């Protein structure tokens, strides 16, 4: 592998300062499951690797009923799906964290890294979007917040600017009557990249018979993960069921801009968006009623 220096950052300011000083010649290391491969294969060059796992905020995983869920950007998937509170309250996120790579990848890979890699097919991103996640982005002196749906700008590209890195993700606390799900289509059972991924969340009213809010997000059908606000909005006031789900699914299909590649044709992908949107909505509603 290419030569580089390695520094373990003590705090957010330290990491951001190093990043700024080595403008464009430093890389942030969280779980390393993408970075180390890219460095080895020389798809990336770097002089410095900044390990952020020792920063308390960046490795924090905490839930507060008022504040919601805070996921440090280096928290590996296995910590997320082994946390009973998160399993109960953020089911869409659990769906995604449980199917990224195999068990040994989940032992290291973080949702923050999945997001920063900005793959159009990243499993965690539609799930984060439907849970309303916000990115907490650090600079040496300041912070800024960006909703996950606005974070990716192109394949492999994000809104992160010079000296900035993703410190944590913040998800609002789900009210009673909230449910979410993430589904993906792959041609086998495990260890594959999504042909299409769909996240859906619903908020039901007190009777649990009407939808008061919904969010739908798509993966692998556009240059970035796609938040389809109009598909969720079409469900406001609707009774959960096949008719309403089909209406939202048709809007999601129209919003998708898939390409044909080795994983599937554009036509197949558009079909899958419809099927997975209906199914993800049905699961989200079922979970919201529990």
């Amino acid at each position, binding site marked *: *592998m*290419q*030569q*580089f*220096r*390695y520094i*373990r950052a003590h705090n957010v300011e330290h990491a951001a300062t190093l990043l700024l000083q080595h403008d464009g010649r430093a890389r942030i*290391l969280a*779980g*390393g*499951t993408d970075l*180390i*491969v890219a*460095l*080895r*294969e020389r798809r990336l060059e770097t002089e410095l*690797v900044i*390990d952020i*796992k020792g920063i308390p905020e960046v490795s924090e995983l905490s839930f507060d009923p008022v504040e919601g869920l805070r996921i440090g950007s280096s928290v*590996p998937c*296995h910590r997320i799906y082994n946390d009973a509170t998160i399993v109960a309250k953020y089911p869409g996120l659990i769906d995604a964290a449980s199917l990224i*790579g*195999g*068990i*040994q*990848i989940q*032992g*290291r890979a973080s949702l923050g890294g999945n997001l920063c890699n900005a793959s159009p097919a990243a499993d965690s991103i539609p799930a984060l979007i439907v849970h309303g996640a916000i990115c907490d982005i650090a600079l040496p002196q300041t912070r800024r917040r960006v909703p996950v749906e606005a974070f990716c700008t192109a394949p492999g590209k994000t809104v992160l600017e010079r000296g900035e890195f993703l410190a944590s993700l913040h998800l609002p606390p789900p009210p009673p009557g909230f449910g979410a799900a993430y589904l993906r289509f792959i041609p086998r*059972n*495990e*260890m594959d990249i999504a042909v299409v991924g769909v996240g859906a969340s619903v908020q039901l009213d007190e009777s649990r018979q009407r939808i008061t809010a919904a969010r739908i997000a798509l993966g692998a059908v556009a240059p970035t993960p796609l938040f389809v606000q109009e598909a969720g909005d079409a469900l406001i006031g609707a009774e959960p069921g096949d008719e309403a789900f089909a209406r939202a699914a048709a809007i999601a299909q129209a919003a998708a801009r898939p390409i044909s590649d080795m994983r599937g044709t554009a036509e197949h992908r558009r079909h899958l968006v419809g099927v997975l949107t209906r199914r993800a909505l049905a699961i989200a509603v079922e979970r919201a009623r529990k």
Partner: protein
Amino acid sequence: MKSRVIVSTTINGEPTEFLCEPRQSLLEVLRDVLGLTGAKEGCNNGNCGACNVLMDGVLVNSCLVLGVEAESHRIETVEGLAVNGKLHPLQQKFLEHAALQCGICTPGFLLSAKALLDHNPDPSEAEVRHWLAGNLCRCTGYDKIVRAVLDAADSA
């Protein structure tokens, strides 16, 4: 530029210090610096599981961990499974079921299976197959491996 770093860690219960370059993976350190050649290099990109080790009890691909990241962590490799010359129950069951042919993937499978049984002592066949999906074997067709793991769980 080519500076080496001292790393203090615990490997198979033994406090261990080593010198490595930041660019060396934990797999390279285990094999080339420490002479622990149990973990194997298959794909070197996280797909095959032949290099699997436990880091603080968590299953990881050692090819996707930098040696310097092992600082202050606890590493377990296949060399630590047998105690005082007595095979670990999983190793014994792999032998009994002939759950290996060429043997390259075996250390990785043993560590994955150990992590599974530590986490879930009584897995179903589906759970075993799901958990082992990140380990590739080109010889056995997996069935004997799955049976060996289930038998080890039953015998525990």
